């Protein structure tokens, strides 16, 4: 009997056009728009690139050439050097991808010509200042105490750092990926509508279909359970399609945690189903009112979780920190944030556990609220 129910519930739910549009097509379309809009924006605007610079220095400037070669061959090169002759410099367009500046050597010291102001120009100036400073130190030492010249040179060539780099995370620093995580979270919450249809199709006071089912010899709990399972199966498929589309078609980089992204998306999607099931089961409102309620509650929770306005979650955590721990939208987005940015699997699994516990809790509440057998009015 359960399998009979499950078979037809699944068959029916997979043909609901509203679900196809809002839970499948809409998120994929939105993801495509995101990708077109700013899919590669991180690489273009945020990720550091070597500063192109033209250098006028003949073959005799061996020290300078060695320093520049060392910089260019490092793991994250600071400069991209092109050697030019003085007569060719008039053709160089400064402040462009060709060269941000021109470095010349005069009496062993560097001079810099730039076409604008900005971070790249500052980097070039800092490089020239450092170089000139070092040259001054070496020259002074050679004149005053030639015996120490080797020690000074060694010290200057050593890396000097005022700050120590402490790596907080191995996670993805491309924060534009967060938009796609939020998209997955939104798709998961849209599952609430599918959860609501479990209530509508099984309550005699909400639909004729529910009334007919209630007249059958199949216990309501079995019918409801089959309906929920069908939504879980559907939502699992939808979440896998969503993540696969983002990863394999749009080439969104979910890093090394792709399997966990799938896991999170599936758990979050089923969390969304149980959320809709629970909200739909409470109160005596009509079918239309319950649909509106799901929309309103989802939007409010998304707003409070910061999916709409950045910084809102911080504000909520200041005034009602516990709310962030139980807000379904916040729990889902936090799971992805931890996975993407912090790369802390302990914190991540805590969030996953919270989602699983809340899923079970919501389903239990839904079952208890719908167990009533007779209605006061139909």
């Amino acid at each position, binding site marked *: *009997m359960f399998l009979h129910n499950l078979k*037809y519930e699944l068959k029916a739910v997979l*043909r609901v056009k509203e679900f196809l549009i809002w839970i499948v097509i809409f998120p994929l379309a939105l993801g495509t728009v995101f990708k077109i809009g700013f899919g590669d924006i991180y690489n273009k605007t945020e990720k550091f690139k070597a500063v192109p610079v033209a250098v006028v220095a003949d073959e005799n400037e061996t020290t300078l050439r060695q320093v520049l070669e060392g910089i260019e061959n490092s793991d994250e090169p600071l400069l991209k050097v092109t050697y030019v002759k003085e007569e060719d410099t008039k053709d160089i367009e400064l402040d462009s991808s060709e060269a941000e500046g021109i470095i010349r050597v005069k009496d062993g010291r560097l001079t810099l010509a730039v076409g604008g102001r900005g971070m790249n120009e500052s980097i070039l100036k800092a490089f020239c200042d450092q170089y000139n400073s070092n040259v001054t130190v070496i020259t002074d030492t050679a004149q005053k105490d030639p015996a120490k010249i080797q020690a000074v040179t060694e010290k200057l060539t050593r890396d000097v750092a005022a700050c120590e780099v402490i790596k907080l995370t191995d996670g993805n620093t491309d924060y534009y990926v967060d938009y796609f995580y939020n998209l997955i979270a939104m798709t998961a919450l849209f599952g609430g509508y599918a959860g609501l249809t479990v209530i509508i199709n099984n309550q005699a006071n909400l639909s004729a279909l529910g009334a*007919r089912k209630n*007249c059958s*010899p199949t*216990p309501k709990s079995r019918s409801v359970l089959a309906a929920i399972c069908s939504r879980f199966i559907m939502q699992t498929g939808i979440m896998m399609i969503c993540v696969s589309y983002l990863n394999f078609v749009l080439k969104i980089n979910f890093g090394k945690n792709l399997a966990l992204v799938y896991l999170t998306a599936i758990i979050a999607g089923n969390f969304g189903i149980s959320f809709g099931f629970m909200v739909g089961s409470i109160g005596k409102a009509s079918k239309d009112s319950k649909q509106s309620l799901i929309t309103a509650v989802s939007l409010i929770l998304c707003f409070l979780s910061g999916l709409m306005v950045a910084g809102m979650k911080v504000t909520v955590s200041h005034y009602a920190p516990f709310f962030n721990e139980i807000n379904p939208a916040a729990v889902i987005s936090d799971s992805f944030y931890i996975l993407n940015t912090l790369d802390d699997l302990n914190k991540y699994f805590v969030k996953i556990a919270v989602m699983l516990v809340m899923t079970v809790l919501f389903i239990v509440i839904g079952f208890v609220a719908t167990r009533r057998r007779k*209605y006061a009015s*139909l």
Partner: protein
Amino acid sequence: MADTVVKIEGLVKRYKDLIALDHLSLEIKEGEVFGLLGPNGSGKTTTINCLLSLLAFDKGSIEIFGKEMTPTSYDIKREIGIIMQNVAVFDELTVYDNIDYFCGLYIRDKATKKKYVEDAIRFVGLEDFIKFYPKKLSGGLLRRLNIACGIAHKPKLIILDEPTVAVDPQSRNKILEGIEELNRNGATIIYTSHYMEEVEQICTRIAIMDKGKKIAEGTKEELKRMIKNTETITVETRGLDEAQLPEIEALPHVYQVSLDDGKLSVSCSGGKHNLIRVLEVLQKHEVHIGRVYSEQPTLNDVFLEITGKALRDKD
């Protein structure tokens, strides 16, 4: 004496200050086609919902097949087929799948279920539409699907709540013929409607309801015998004067005469040859006569005489 299938005693249902069912008692015997007739809001659907244990009631008792009906009376529910006023099917399943789904809620054996589903499809004449989705069906075909979903498991008791609302005449006839066939095959039928013609056509016993009360019960003949009117004679006339009406009213068995725009209406109570006597009076006064017809009383006349209002507005 046939067994009692449904027994309702002193049923009371209140919605705050409104009494939807006022101490309603009914007894329906096996093999009957029992009609619940009444205007909209008279309590027919409320009665059905209480009977099916969907709706809580304030007072009274309901027994089906000799057992108290409760929401968990699955053995009783197994023997009931319900056809709702509103079409209750999955829009996303085909005709075949819908019938198979609902039949499967009652019948576990796959082979039996398959046979029953095919029987139901044949019964309602949807053989050519089994792969159609409900939205592609006309109103009449949709109603037939609704019926097929309710009767596919071959129940002993079939409850039809206004199954012909918004149905074309062809489908309506098909539905009514089907109900009679189900009854011939052994099912007890409860049929609610505000269409008195349908109830008169198929029901073996009828309860007339108004404002949550049963105001009359019996066979259609018994109900008609409850009222004074036995015949209404209508004559289209030209040249009939109001002054001549008392002469007609004085005829034997005539108890009411009216003239409206040349149409003479004469209500009689018992007797024979009433029409001949009326026509003789008109001929005597050289009144020109057009169409003439005599009608037996309808259930609407019964309702009108008992409540002082018509059963329903003319469609």
